[in-house]
């Protein structure tokens, strides 16, 4: 027997076959609002208790990203196979004037049935608009070829995966199957966006640039559950610097530059800190440090050189998945940098215990 699932905020319950008609009625009843949509935005979870929370997330996301939202929760433990559906609209005042609304269809699928997720998705898309799919949790057996071939963009969070190696293998297979057409966006990668931007900004400093060839230490500090995020950021530093991994001992790696210089990479874990709490890149005469206190929305960015020192605050990435998704949707693009970094990340990951 499945747990009781709250569906209060999902709107009006509807028969699955009557969804289109009911949506039409919904819009006819409200002439003052504009139905806007830039994409089909699907949120899928195999944790039915998240359905309500996901609806709240869509309410927030649609302030900036008008879409047709389709929320699907799969209750795979249910003995009886059935589908429940609801419709609603999330409306916001644009610039304090016009009411802009995004429609939302929610589904709760009970019981195991391999094709039902795919078919539910296919039947309720706005034609021609891109399909962005936020897959919450592990990429299960339902992440299958006939489904992912239709996706324009897949958003996931590898920090929630119990076995990242298997997850990334599935992901790479899917990308190969789609000939790279499906854009993949890992929220663990998004989580370090402002860290990476800050590193780039700090290395615009002439002293930091001069010291680049003498870097001998890189340190990443993160929460243990954000291991993939920390590894992705380390992989980015290694890749951009043109270094190679020589050896590993626990969470310490020995790297080598093209010129043969040795660099120590260290990952530290701090359960009490921010998801990613620190990145330090140090040379004997210059150090670049970016850090974040837990709960703080800013990154402390510092450069320490023998003749000068710069300290300033900059924006930090959101702690919440919905904030990261919103940032990711705003940035768009093909996420090609992530793909460039992926082989290096996999090398670090594969050597993981």
């Amino acid at each position, binding site marked *: 027997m499945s747990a009781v699932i709250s569906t209060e905020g999902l709107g009006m319950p509807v028969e699955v076959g009557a969804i289109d008609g009911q949506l039409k009625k919904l819009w006819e009843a409200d002439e003052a609002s504009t139905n806007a949509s830039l994409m089909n935005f699907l949120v899928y979870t195999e944790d039915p208790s998240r359905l309500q929370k996901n609806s709240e997330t869509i309410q927030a996301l649609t302030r900036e990203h*008008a879409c047709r939202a389709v929320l699907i929760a799969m209750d795979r433990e249910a003995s009886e196979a059935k589908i429940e559906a609801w419709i609603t609209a999330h409306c916001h005042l644009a*610039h304090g004037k016009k009411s802009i609304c995004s429609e939302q269809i929610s589904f709760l699928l009970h019981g195991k049935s391999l094709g039902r997720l795919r078919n539910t998705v296919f039947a309720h898309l706005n034609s021609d608009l891109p399909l962005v799919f936020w897959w919450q949790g592990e990429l299960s057996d339902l992440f299958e070829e006939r489904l992912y071939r239709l996706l324009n963009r897949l958003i996931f969070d590898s920090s929630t995966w119990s076995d990242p190696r298997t997850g990334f293998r599935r992901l790479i297979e899917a990308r190969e199957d789609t000939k790279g057409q499906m854009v993949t966006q890992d929220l663990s990668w998004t989580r370090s966006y402002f860290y990476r931007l800050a590193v780039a900004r700090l290395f615009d400093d*002439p002293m930091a640039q001069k010291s680049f060839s003498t870097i001998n230490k890189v340190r990443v500090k993160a929460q243990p559950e954000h291991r993939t995020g920390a590894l992705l950021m380390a992989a980015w530093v290694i890749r951009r610097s043109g270094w190679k991994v020589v050896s590993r001992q626990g969470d310490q790696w020995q790297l080598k530059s093209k010129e043969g210089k040795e660099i120590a990479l260290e990952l530290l874990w701090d359960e009490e800190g921010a998801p990613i709490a620190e990145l330090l890149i140090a040379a004997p005469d210059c150090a670049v440090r970016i850090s974040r206190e837990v709960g703080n929305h800013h990154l402390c960015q510092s450069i320490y050189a023998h003749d000068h020192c710069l300290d300033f605050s900059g924006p930090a990435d959101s702690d919440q998945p919905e904030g990261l998704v919103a940032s990711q949707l705003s940035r768009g693009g093909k996420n090609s940098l992530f793909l460039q970094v992926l082989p290096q990340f996999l090398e670090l990951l594969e050597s993981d215990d």
Partner: protein
Amino acid sequence: MGKAGVSNPFREDLVSRNLAEACSVVIFGATGDLTHRKLIPALYNLAVDGELPAGVRILGFARRDWTDEFFREGLEKLNKKVSRTGHDDEIWASLASNVEYHQSEFQDEEGYRSLAKRLDEIDRERGGKGNRLFYIASAPEYFDDILLNLKKAGLSQDRPDCDGCWSRVIVEKPFGTTLATAQHLNEVVNGTFQEKETYRIDHYLGKETAQNIMVLRFANAIFEPMWNKEHIDHVQITCAEHLGMEGGRGGYYDKAGALRDMVQNHLLQLLSLVAMEPPTDLSADGVRDEKVKVIRSLRQWDTPELVAENVIRGQYVAGNVNGDEVPGYREEDRVDPESETEAYVALRCMIDTWRWSGVPFYVRMGKRLPKKATEISIHFKETPSVLFNAMPGGVPAGNVLVMRIQPDEGISLMMNSKLPGTTLRMEPVKMDFHYASSFGKSSPEAYERLLLDAMAGDATLFARRDEVEEAWRFIDKIHNAWEEQGKEIPIAEFPAGSWGPREADELLAKDGRTWRRL
């Protein structure tokens, strides 16, 4: 790619735009409204978005005897009011710690020598990179003094001791008031800074929809094949303002007029974006080469007869705007009661190129019109009247593609559709795209984009010397003809709150067309 990108491996591929480099930003006229309302909030918002390069220092240069603290407090106060993203104390504190005030008269050479000394100190504190961005936001009568004194203080030249460092200048409008004054200013600017380091700002080009004109034209296969005399009947560019001469603006405006204040720069820039050929690439000169060809191809209205036939100037008389009684132009604060300055202008422009031969571009700009709106409309030719002309009601007008620049940025397309029913009747319907509806996130302010571009050395959205001078050449001839006409052709009048003088309607009516109703 900026120079730092070459030696900074972390920059590569991180952002899909040119790299803005750390620099000292020196703002002349720092106590003015532009600095407080636009420039500092723009720099602040860049910091909020993580786009402001590390180590940017801001020096306000002005005559008033202010302290650093007083200057910062004033900036903070206004930033709280006008910033696009709100006000975050921590980001502000970080930015404000890099803001200082430099008191000097614009004519005082010593002030520039001490500025140079201070900039050298900042460079040392910052680690040696000595990029400088001078923003001339003062009243235009000081432009010459500022530029010449920058040169005397050695602030405009490349420094042999600083490899790869740059000194750039941003010049605010008005860039001259005639061709002769613009040429003089260009001589002074280019005698001080190289043309490639000169950024003549036209904030219209920083607006999202203005930038979208090129995307619409060249990234959508359906429009460009139709973007010519075969398919387009005419183009209208309207810049309507509901405000008059509030806030003491009459003093400046009465000397400038609508033609010089808006058409010479903003509206001719929009016209050139609409009419230009596809550039060979998106480099600054690639785009500007094509834009200047359009301005150069404008048929010159160089006799009083041609001007009378193709240009209408007007003034508003007392009327009613948004329910408020408003005075006529000549009764406005700081306006000469016998002023002959136009507060409204409408032009019929012809572009003598293969693409646009015979296609009129109607441009109008006016104060005290019913509402604030800047829009470009492309009026396509009507379909051959062989199928539907016998139907009741006939065929409605041709398709119209509208690009709304401000407010409510967006694009709409009017097309004809059958009315439901058993008879064949057609009505125009509107497909509408609103930036605000589709993208809830607010667009960066024009000044954010333009400041970042100047720090990155990307001059695509800035006017080049030849563009400015060609535009003045076109405008000057109209002005000269007006002066020659004297009072033979009286200035047209219209009640404030209406859509301009009758004469402007007749300008289109004689071509069998009407102004679009906004």
